[in-house]
Each structure stands twice: as structure tokens, then as C-alpha cells.
């Protein structure tokens, strides 16, 4: 099998598309880590929740187009995130690290089992009939749904960043990230700020799932693969750094695709995490060392 330039160029295209979605997942994960100081293993399951939400809205009697479904979807996911935080996570914010890890791991297991009970373990997919499958340019091609996901994910990640940078809520979140006690002293309500942070992160993560639904085979445990990619992206981009996570996500997507082309599909994960390991040794602070993450 030849390794001519076509394979590499096509791999770059494929990798970029995936990278955009990884970026959105990593951005929300890094926010949760930076502000709540929480390593959220359930993050992958939130991607899956988004996918099934898209499927449910799509298959409902009134059948919403999966891209239009993003509007009610984001609101529903925001609400879900808020409830998760206020109902559960808020109770363990002051708990020791091991307890927090166990808690989010447990949340992952419970969320996935619940999805299996509701939607069963059959592979599912949101099938949009009537949309062109691909756009071709010369010998290269890009899948239309992947292209939409890429653009939408970057737009959402951009909005996310702008919200943190330019709104009062964003300033409150940044303050809470930098010094939670001082933030509380100057009148920033701790609980609702953290709840808002987690809810907006849940919305972003779930939105990534909704964007994936038209081209990724969904089943209750599919989120695991995105969890790994998001961790890698977050670490590469320096934990807590939004723009870093964005770049990290795209790099992970590219590394995966190029690794698959170079070493074969079986070794792409090993290639990505091999890179992460090397980077952790050579540059443990990540690519984007920043004073304040968010």
C-alpha cells in the first residue's frame, strides 16, 4: 500500500474535522478543571447524553433536524448540567481528591447504565436523508456532516471563550477560578457561579455530542473514546487554558489521523498518548503555560 501524498493530505483533512469536535469537548473539560478543580470522568458520558438527545429529538413525532435541535438542545443540556451540579457535585466540592475522582467515575458508570436502560445497547445513528454525503475537491473529500461539526464546534468554542472574556458572568467565573475565597468576599456567589460553570460546560460537551450524532455510531459507552482525546487535548494545551484546549483538541485530531496513516488504525491512540507522554516529560506545563488559566 503506497504512502503517497494523497493519504497524508486526506489524513490532515480527516484529522482537522475530528480535532474541531475534540476541541469543543476539551474546552469545556478544561473549564471544569480550571474553575471547579474537578477531574470529571463523567465528561465522556455527557458527550453521549448529547448524542442520544439529538437522536431523541430527531426521532420524535415532529422530528427536529439535528442542527436546529442544537437550540433547544443547548438549553436542555444547560439545565441538566445545573441540576447535576446543584443536586450532586456541589456536595463533594470540598471533599478529598480521591473521593471526588471516585464520585465522577461513579457518575460516569451510572449515566452510562441509565442510557443503556433507556436506549438499549444497539448501535444507533441520526440519519439525515437528503443531505449530500461529501464535498470533493480533486481527489480529496470531506464529509459534509463532519465539516458542519467542525465549523459549529469552533464557533461554539469561540462563543464560550468570548462569554468568559467579555461578560460579567465570565468575569465572575475567572475570579472564582483564580481565588474562590476572595471572589466570595467581593460578592460573587460561589455556588451559583460554579453551577453556571458546570452547566455551560455540560451544554458545550453535549453540543459536541449532538454534532457528532449524524456520523458517529452511538451506543451508551461511546463517550470513552472522547474522554481520552479530551484529556490529551487538555494536557497538551495546559490544564485550565481555554485557547490551549482548543489548539490541543485540533492537535490531537491531527495526531490521531496522521498516526493512523503512518502506523495503522490500531495504533492511533498509542500514537496520541505517546506524544502526550513525551510532551509531559519535555514540557510538563503544556504548550500554553499561562499564569491564570481561564
Amino acid at each position: 500500500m503506497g504512502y503517497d501524498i494523497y493519504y497524508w493530505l486526506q489524513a490532515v483533512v480527516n484529522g482537522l474535522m475530528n480535532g474541531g469536535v475534540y476541541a469543543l469537548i476539551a474546552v469545556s473539560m478544561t473549564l471544569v478543571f480550571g474553575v471547579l478543580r474537578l477531574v470529571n470522568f463523567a465528561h465522556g458520558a455527557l458527550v453521549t447524553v448529547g448524542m442520544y438527545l439529538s437522536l431523541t429529538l430527531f426521532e420524535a413525532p415532529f422530528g427536529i433536524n439535528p442542527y436546529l435541535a442544537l437550540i433547544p438542545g443547548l438549553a436542555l443540556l444547560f439545565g441538566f448540567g445545573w441540576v447535576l451540579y446543584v443536586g450532586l457535585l456541589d456536595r463533594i466540592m470540598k471533599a478529598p481528591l480521591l473521593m471526588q475522582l471516585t464520585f465522577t467515575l461513579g457518575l460516569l458508570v451510572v449515566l452510562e447504565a441509565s442510557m443503556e436502560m433507556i436506549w438499549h445497547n444497539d448501535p444507533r445513528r441520526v440519519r439525515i436523508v437528503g443531505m449530500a454525503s461529501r464535498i470533493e475537491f480533486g481527489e480529496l473529500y470531506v464529509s459534509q456532516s463532519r465539516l458542519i461539526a467542525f465549523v459549529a464546534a469552533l464557533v461554539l468554542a469561540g462563543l464560550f471563550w468570548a462569554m468568559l472574556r467579555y461578560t460579567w458572568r465570565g468575569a465572575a467565573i475567572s475570579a472564582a477560578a483564580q481565588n474562590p475565597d476572595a471572589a466570595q468576599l467581593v460578592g460573587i456567589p460561589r455556588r451559583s457561579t460554579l453551577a453556571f460553570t458546570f452547566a455551560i460546560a455540560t451544554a458545550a460537551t453535549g453540543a459536541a455530542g449532538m454534532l457528532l450524532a449524524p456520523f458517529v455510531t452511538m451506543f451508551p459507552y461511546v463517550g470513552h473514546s472522547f474522554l481520552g482525546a479530551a484529556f490529551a487535548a487538555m494536557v497538551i494545551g495546559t490544564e485550565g487554558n481555554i485557547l490551549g484546549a482548543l489548539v490541543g483538541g485540533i492537535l490531537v485530531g491531527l495526531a490521531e489521523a496522521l498516526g493512523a496513516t503512518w502506523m495503522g488504525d490500531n495504533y492511533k491512540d498509542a500514537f496520541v498518548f505517546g506524544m502526550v507522554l513525551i510532551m509531559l516529560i519535555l514540557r510538563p506545563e503544556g504548550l500554553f503555560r499561562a499564569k491564570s488559566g481561564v
Partner: protein
Amino acid sequence: MKFVNKNAGKRLFAALALVGVSSMAMAADTIRIASVDAMSGPVGNLGTDTYNAEQIAVDEINAAGGIKSMGGALLELVPYDTESKVQTGQLQTERAISEGAVMILGTAQSSVTMGTTTVAERAKIPHIVTGSAADSITDRGYKFTFRILVTSTLVASTYVQKLEEIFAQYGRKPESVVVVFEDSAYGQSNSKRYTKAFGDAGIKYQELSFKTGSTDLSGLASRLRRVDADAMIYAGYVKDVVTLVEALREADVNFDYVNTSVGTTDPAFMKAIGADDAEGYIGIQYFNPNVSAPGNPDGPQKFYDSYRERFGRDPGLTSAMGYTAVRIAYKALEATGSTDPEALRAVLADLELRPEDGHILPYESVKFDETGQNVNANSPWAQIINGRLEIVAPAENATAKPLLPMPTWAEKEAKR
């Protein structure tokens, strides 16, 4: 059913319980058989589909008066979920035996069945294998293992024959194939057998591999886009097949013939891909309601109808194996008149499940050779034609003429 007690004490209890199990079962009005299968986890759909069918057979038998030679004792089917895991499968088998099961039925995965049959063999409890094809399961000289399904070797050795049969109907001969395999033990052992079979038949072949459970196979698809071959062969589970077919669609990859083994014929495939996009794909189908079992012309359709009526969907890949396993268990119990494991084993070794016993598979009867392998087992191929699964090979089972070449993506899109 997911609770697994890992205490050593439990095992001791299991051993103690074994001693008294046959007398306990005799005293009760019910005879317990265990469905040890994947009811959750990655292949949870397969085990569930099998267990569902087992319930149908049990209810039929009980409604007809139970086991007459044992005073009308009723069959009791108890599910034990392996969670698609080797270790859980073993523990659940131990638990089933300790809870009085006189026979084990299962499982959907060869790797798990390797463990469950070992536990059953040690405890001297008959194990009827429903959905696992790995040769090694019946290669170990086990006395208590009986398999209904074909072996992987048989699947591969009849493969070229069926492939040539399909191409011959269009005056062609398959000259080159590309074999796509997943990196698990299942995919690799299959790939080896196929490539050997193709090599022996003088068919040009090349291999590509991928990682099972991948969420994105666009890299693989971009390679396949450049492969020039008459046929694409793939062996793997339905989730991977759905992902692969989606990647083929995105990359506009077309072959005249694509066989995705057990993936295509899983009802979940057509549901996820959509009947129009699934058109033309070929795969193994052990049971088809339109293929009458010799001597039992209505049996297959009757089973199919009761399955659909009760569970609201089509039987899965190995559902018919589950139904058959219960029918075998019943015939053995009726003939033995007791639950003595040694006596049951001896009866099973000589047993023949015939049409009048509720045999619904597309061959004469089920009977086992000295390794415990069903000597008549076969692996017909079905193709999705006009949104229905039709058997296209071997010729004696065929319900329709194969579609060759299968429609391209451009043709499918033009039809929408």
C-alpha cells in the same frame, strides 16, 4: 442479575451445592437451566436476543406439559449476565451451577465461552454452546461441551465456494478481494483463515486492519477508496460494521460485493444504517424465516412470528441457536428422565434434534460428533435485497438471486 459475589466462601458453597444438586432438582417441580450470556456490555444485544428466544422455547415446552418422564416437571430458565466479560462469565457460570442449574446455555462471544465451558467441564455440568464459533471451544477434549453453531474453520472453508457460486451466477469469477479485519482475537483468527482459503483458491487478496470500537474509520475508508478489488470481506461486530459502512459512504467507496459477516444480518444494522443505504450488503445468517427447515416447513416462520409478537423486533443473529439449545435440553431431559449430569451427558452425545423435536435451522438435524460439535451446522449467507434479508448462498437454501454488483453510493443517493 448483575451482582457477582467474589467471595471464596461462595465457591465452597458452589462445590457443596453441586453434590446435592441432582436430588434437589428432582425433588422440585421445576428443572433449572441457566442462560449464561452477554445481556449488557459491548455485545449485550446478542445475548439478550438469544435469551429472548430461549424463553419462547421454554414457554412452549411448559405449555405442552413440561417434562413428561419427570412427572411433568417444568423448565425454569434463569438469566445470568456475563456483561460481555470473560471473568464475569466464569463467575456467573459458577453461580448458576451453585444455584442448581442442570445445564448451561451460552454465550455470544468465543472468548467468554472458553471460560464458561471450562467451569462447566470442571463441575461436570453439560454446556450447550449457542453463539461462539472459535475452533478451540470444541478442540480441548471436553466431555460436557456441545456446540450448535458452526466452527470458524468451517465458515472459512466454505467461504470461497459460496463466493464463487455467487459470482458464477453472473458469469464472473472473483479475482481479487480485500480483507478488512479488526485487531481482536476474533478478527485476527478469522482473517488468517480467510486469507489461507483465498490463497489456496488462487484469489488475489490484501489485508487492512483497524481497531475494534473505533469511533471514526475515515482513515481506513480513504485507503479502501484506492483499493481495486472485486470484493471486500470484513469480519466483526455490528457496531464496527455500522461505523465502517458510514465511513464507506462518506468516502464514496464501492465494491461489487461486500460481506460484513455477522454485522449485516444483525437487525440493528439495517435500523442504524437505514434500509436504503444497507441495500446489497451480505452477511452470515444462521436462521431465516423464509428458509424452511427440512421436515419442519412451518417451524421457522412460527418461531419468527412468536419472536416478533413477543419482543417487537426481529430475532437476532443467534436467537435461533438459543431456541434450539432449549429444545435440545428438553429432549435430553425427557430421554434421561433425571438430572444426573453423567446420564445427561451420555444422552446428549447420542442425541439428534429432528424436525418433530422443534428443529428450525436450515439443515436436516442437530447432532454432535465426539468433540461435541454439531456435524450438520452451516453458515448461509443473506443479502439485503429490497430491504429484506434474503438467503443467496448456498444454492440449496437460497430464497433469492444475489444482487451483483451491489448498488453504488451514487445509485443509492440518486434513489432518494
